[in-house]
Each structure stands twice: as structure tokens, then as C-alpha cells.
């Protein structure tokens, strides 16, 4: 059997793939939560950390220090900034996600040994999260309402329940699976990363609405003709975005923007499965049932 035949005829079996992926993803997130206490590796902006302030700044080069520390502690989330007064740099702040004493000590040792600093040349402050404790709760509430509202809008637009649920399910699966793959990379999530996950909603909705419209509202050709038509457009959309993100990943220097790009890249790949296998499968089953 050729790939095309499998895609056209065995779509109900294929439908298992996205659901198995979804279950595996939920499993990964569950294990991650059980082991670390958090569903995702949180970075400095999300969980807080510590700030080492160096008061002797004449030999410190901010960029170089940042690279040096990133190199030495590849797993840590480190950010080096200058503090100035009247145009003069008075101190350098090394912000990191280190909260445990051992982590802070290792980092402090690296910095003080590099510049030969004494105890009086630096100070350490432990910072809490920039976001309140209620941040994640609020965000989850907002997300639940967001998915409800989106469901209502799609329902009004297409006036059928199953296809509307399919759009929402695709967007939700996309976010969950991407989150679990992101966890596996070991990168620490920043607030900007959260924005990236939310951006997936927009990308996912685009392809799904395209597919639903072509399958449900158009009459020309067979169902499969319409699936392929939609796929041609949809794949052009995903390809342009993936290529643009790929190029951005190579050239972007900022860690934060890199993180946004990585999440989008994973998310768009996952979206291909969720749109062209999951959503197509559900819609074809729906159309078939309606014909009977």
C-alpha cells in the first residue's frame, strides 16, 4: 500500500496517532509534575532567583561575563546587566535562577575567582518571582475561558458542534504536546515563552479554519479533492513560517527570542499532525456519518 492510499483509506487507524501522542504528552507532563513539583522547567522570570551585585566594575565586560557564565553553567538561566548613575557604570548585576545556597555559592565563586574579588566587592540578594503566586492560576483560568469563547465563535461560524470541537481539540492538543516536547529539551521557560505557547493558538486556528471551511462549506470535487486543496494551501502556510523561523533561529542572538522561536517551531510541526491527521480524520468521520 502506498502512503497516499493509507492516508485516504486508513484514516480511522491514523487517527490513533495524534491521540497516542496526546496521551504520551500528558503522561510526560504528569511525571514531570510528580518528580519536580512543576509542570515545566521555570526560568528566572517565572520562579525568581538571585542577583549578585558586583561593585568593582573596572575590569568587568558585561557581554564577556555573560558568555563565560552561560558556558560554565549551561543549565542555568543567567542575565548580566549594568547599573549606572549619571552615565557612569557603578555596578554590574548578575541575575540568575539560582535559589539554592549551593547553586548561588558555585556561581559566586565563578564570578569572584574570575575577577579576583574580595567579600566586600559584591552583595547577594535572593529575588522572588516577578509574577505573583496567582499568575499561573490566572493564566489557566484565562486559557479555559479563551478556549470556551473560541469554541462559541467557531460554533456560530460553522453552526455544527463536532467540527467546532475538532478545531478546539486541535489547538489544545498542539499546546499540550508542544509543552511536553519543550520539557524534554530541558530549556527553562521564561515569561516570553508563555507568550509563544499562546501564539500557537493563532497558528493552529488558521490551518484548522481553512480546513473546516474547505470541507464543510465548499461543494466542488470529492472530499479528498478538498482535503488536498486545503493541504496545498496549508502546507504553503506552514512551510513559509517554518522556513522563516528556521532562519531566525540561526541568526538571532537573544536567548529569549530564540526560546520563542524554538517553541513556535515545535508547535508548527505538531500542528501538522493535529490538522492533517487528527482534524481531517474527525471531519471525514463526521461527513460520512452525516451522509448516512
Amino acid at each position, binding site marked *: 500500500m502506498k502512503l497516499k492510499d493509507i492516508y485516504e483509506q486508513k484514516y480511522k487507524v491514523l487517527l490513533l496517532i495524534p491521540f497516542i501522542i496526546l496521551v504520551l504528552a500528558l503522561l510526560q507532563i504528569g511525571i514531570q509534575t510528580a518528580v519536580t513539583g512543576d509542570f515545566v522547567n521555570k526560568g528566572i522570570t517565572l520562579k525568581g532567583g538571585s542577583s549578585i551585585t558586583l561593585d568593582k566594575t573596572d575590569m568587568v565586560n558585561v557581554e564577556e561575563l555573560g558568555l563565560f557564565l552561560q558556558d560554565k553553567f549551561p543549565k542555568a538561566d543567567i542575565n548580566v546587566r549594568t547599573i549606572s548613575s*549619571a552615565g557612569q557604570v557603578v555596578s554590574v548585576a548578575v541575575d540568575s535562577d539560582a535559589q539554592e545556597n549551593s547553586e548561588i555559592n558555585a556561581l559566586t565563586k565563578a564570578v569572584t575567582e574570575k575577577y579576583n574579588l574580595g567579600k566586600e566587592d559584591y552583595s547577594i540578594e535572593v529575588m522572588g518571582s516577578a509574577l505573583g503566586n496567582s499568575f499561573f492560576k490566572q493564566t489557566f483560568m484565562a486559557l479555559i475561558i479563551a478556549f470556551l469563547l473560541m469554541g462559541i465563535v467557531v460554533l456560530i461560524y460553522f453552526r455544527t458542534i463536532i467540527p467546532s470541537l475538532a478545531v478546539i481539540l486541535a489547538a489544545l492538543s498542539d499546546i499540550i504536546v508542544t509543552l511536553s516536547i519543550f520539557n524534554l529539551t530541558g530549556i527553562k521557560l521564561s515569561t516570553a515563552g*508563555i507568550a509563544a505557547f499562546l501564539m500557537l493558538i493563532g497558528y493552529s486556528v488558521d490551518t484548522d479554519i481553512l480546513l473546516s471551511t474547505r470541507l464543510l462549506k465548499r461543494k466542488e470535487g470529492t472530499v479528498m479533492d478538498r482535503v488536498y486543496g486545503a493541504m496545498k494551501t496549508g502546507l504553503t502556510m506552514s512551510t513559509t513560517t517554518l522556513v522563516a523561523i528556521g532562519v531566525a533561529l540561526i541568526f538571532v542572538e537573544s536567548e529569549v527570542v530564540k526560546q520563542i522561536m524554538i517553541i513556535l517551531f515545535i508547535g508548527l510541526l505538531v500542528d501538522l499532525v493535529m490538522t492533517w491527521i487528527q482534524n481531517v480524520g474527525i471531519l471525514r468521520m463526521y461527513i460520512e456519518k452525516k451522509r448516512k
Partner: protein
Amino acid sequence: MNQRLKNIISNWRVIMLVIFLVFAIVSIHPKVFGNEGVTIRSVVQNSSAELAGIQNPSPKLTPLAKEKIISFNGEKINTADDFYKLTSNLKENRSLMLETSDGFYTLKTKRDVSGEIDLGLKIYQAPTSNLRKGLDLEGGTRVLLKPAEPISEEDLEITIANLKERLNVYGLSDVIVRAASDLAGEDFILIEIAGVTEDEVRELLSQQGKFEAKIGNETVFFGGKKDITYVCRSADCSGIDPRRGCSKTSDGGYACSFFFGITLSEEAAERQAELTDKLTVLSEEGGSYLSDDIALYLDDNEVDRLRIGADLKGRATMNIQISGAGAGPTQADGVTDALKNMKRLQTIIITGSLPVKLDVVKMDTISPSLGKEFLDNIVLVGLLAILSVITVVLIRYRKIKVVAPMVFIIISEMVLILGFASLVGWNLDLAAIAGIIIVAGTGVDHLIIITDETLKGEVISDWKKRIKNAMFIVMGAYLTTCAGMLPLWFAGAGLLKGFAFTTIVGISFGVLVARPAYAAMIEQLLKE
């Protein structure tokens, strides 16, 4: 071909896009030449600069409209370094000439509070457009606050929430507030704010903000939501008091009064009725008043004292006027100061008092977390991304007629977002950049949808129908994405708010203005 071009230019959708673009560019006002000089960020109170008549820039001014220093003692100032070099070794009691974009000033050098000779001017390199850069991109002020007495974790959280609200109500949105502690376990609060006037913020943050209105020794109401349900901040019930206005003071300056209306809760109004009922009516020239005044206190200092009209005796009035004053060397300064005090008092009354007084430990300027080269790099990456998009669509469609308008539309959409950002004066930060990325990304998606729907010309011959079909999908995706973003906008958490807002504004401009113009363009270009 000429006829087609004419048709495109005269199409109303294209005309609308061009009008929006012109507006956007005017509001961004990019400046390629004439960027020399440094802009005044703030003027320190009672410094040489303030005494010479240089005013603190109003936060409402657009970045390009702020006062710029052009020369110092005849020497031209091009960069911030020039300014620091020229002002670093000043002698006491010398007269200096300062030329700014607003005029000439003569400054007399003097020692400041710490005994150093300082002009009291905080400056930064003059901006090149009206785009405001946020904390991530431009850095700002870092304030370390310490509670005056040890407080519980719960109170610390209340304090942080209250400070956040205070800064928000005051109109500063690009703010990070968080708890911090040193290794000895002492609690601090760390605040980072995108470039602002330091004095104002210092007062706003360090004031505990215990606001009370008293008649005799009895409190009528406190600041905060429990007693005061509404504080008027619109022009019809707040501003300079028309009945009291400004008057000359004995030392030659001007004092101006402000007022604003508030609404009391029923409970507080009852308390007022009880207290006024005990007072006696005094008849004097100009009307009848009660025997005691209502006095307003902020952190136990009297702000103002008002007579109570006799008709209010024993009545539970819920609408009350709060007043206070400001002063300055000229009448205009007096008005500015009064309005500044009014804004601070309103903020404090709305947000209530902090559980504890806070001391400002230090206040510094902090460099942007994203680094200096960030913006240059992001622009480069953006251009490369657009180039790669062009390559892919060229391979797919092989028609310059399709690709050229597409590129024009993508760039237009970004200009529209930035134009809107500078018009409403919102800070460009990481959230905004994330929003712009999603708008550009879904923009390309929608242009491809429109192209594919219209290129399928063999099946449907009617162009209007084809575009209608395309816009059906685009609108569906637009409405759904908006529905997803709206709750995040209202969720309240800073970053998400900015992101949701940028996304909604950006895709709205895209779907309602730019993308229909694209449909009109390729209709003209591809029609047989």
C-alpha cells in the same frame, strides 16, 4: 498595465490602506537626520536646573517633543558622553549657559543635598522616533525598597500587589515588582520601571498612603475601596478648582488649588451624617457653616481643611469633594504642581494604604535585559525572515505579481502596528515584539489563503465570489484568534496583557485594512 495600476490606486481599499499608512508614519515620525543632542529625562527638585526654570518633562509628551539640550556654554552637545564630560568638573557659584530646544537658560552651579556640584539634570541620548522603548529594550530605573519594620509574608504580598496597582493607576504599565531578600533574611521589594521621572516615583512608592478625613478627632472615612467606591478622574469633576483657582503667595510664588469628586460607601456616608449632626450651625458673612471643619490627612499630615455647609448637617451625602493645593514660582508651575499632587492623591485614595511604610534604599539606572545590540539584531533577523518568506512564496507561485504586493502588505502591517503603538504611547517590550511576530506570521498565512482562493479561477469565474470565499476563512480565523486573546487581555498579568493587546490590535489592522487591500490588488493584477 497602466490601466491596471490606475485601477489599483483608485480602489477604495487600497486608498484606505495608504491613508492609514500615512497616519502611522506621521505618528512614528522617524528621524534620519538631526538626532544630535540629549533629551532631558528629569529635573531634580531644588537643583540649579530647576531654579533656572527648566521644567520636568510631562510624561504625556511624545519622545520627540521632549526638551532637548543643544549646547552647553557654547559647546555643541551631540552625545550623552559629551554632556557628562562637560558637566563633570564644575566649580561652585559659576554662571553657565544652556541652550535647549525650548530656549536659553542661565544656570548657577551650587552644591546639592549630598554636597556635590550637580546641575540636577538627568538626560539620555535623544530618541530617533516617537516609538517608546520598554524596560527590556531601553532599561529604566531600579528601585530597592525596604519595609520600615519587619512584616509578615502575607503583608509583603499585599504590599507588592498594592504597589503594582499604584503604579498602574498612576499610568506606569511597564513595571516589574517583586519580593527580594538578602542572605541575612531581610526583606526587600525590588521594582524596575521603564525610564521615568525619579522624584515622582520616589514619593509614590515610599508613601504609606494612609488617607483619612476627620471631623474633630473622629475619622469619617479612610482611603481605599472599602470607604470610597469611586474616584473621579475625568475633566468634568476633577482639576484646578474654579472657585479657588491660583493666588499669589507671600514669597512671590503661586499656590493653586485642585479638587476632585469621590463617592463614599453608604457606611461612610452614615458616619459622616452622625458626626455632622453633633455640630452647631454658625451664621457668618457669605453663608452658614458648621462649627467644625472636615480635615484631610495623608500619612498624618494635613493636606487641606474645608468648611462644611450648614445644609449638610446630619445628612448622609455620598458625593464629596476632596481638595488640596500645589505651588510653584510661576502660575503655570503652580498649576502643574497642583495637578501632579492631585494625581498622586487620587492614586493613593484609589489603592488604599500600604500595611507598612517603605524606605527607598537605592535608586539606580539599569541597563536593558535584552542588551544594546538586541534591536539591531532583531531588525536583521526580521529582514532575513521576510526574505525567506519571499523565497518560499516565489517557489510556490512563480509570479512576481503575487509576491510583490504580498511583501508590501507584510511590511505595511508592521508599520501600522508601530504607528498605533507610538500614537497611544505604549512601550515596546518583549511582549509587543512577540505580538508583532504573530501578526506577521498569521499575516503571511492569510495572504496565502487569499491568493489560493482567488487563483482557483477555473471553478468560480466571479471575482467577487472568490474574494468573499477567501475573506470568509480569514474572518473566521480572525474572530477565533480574537476570542482566544480577549480573556488573556483581561487576565491582568502584565506580560500577557501586552501580548494579547498587541496581537488583537495588529491582526485587526491586518484583517480589516491591509489584507482586503491585498485582495483588491491581486484581483486587478491577475484578472484576465
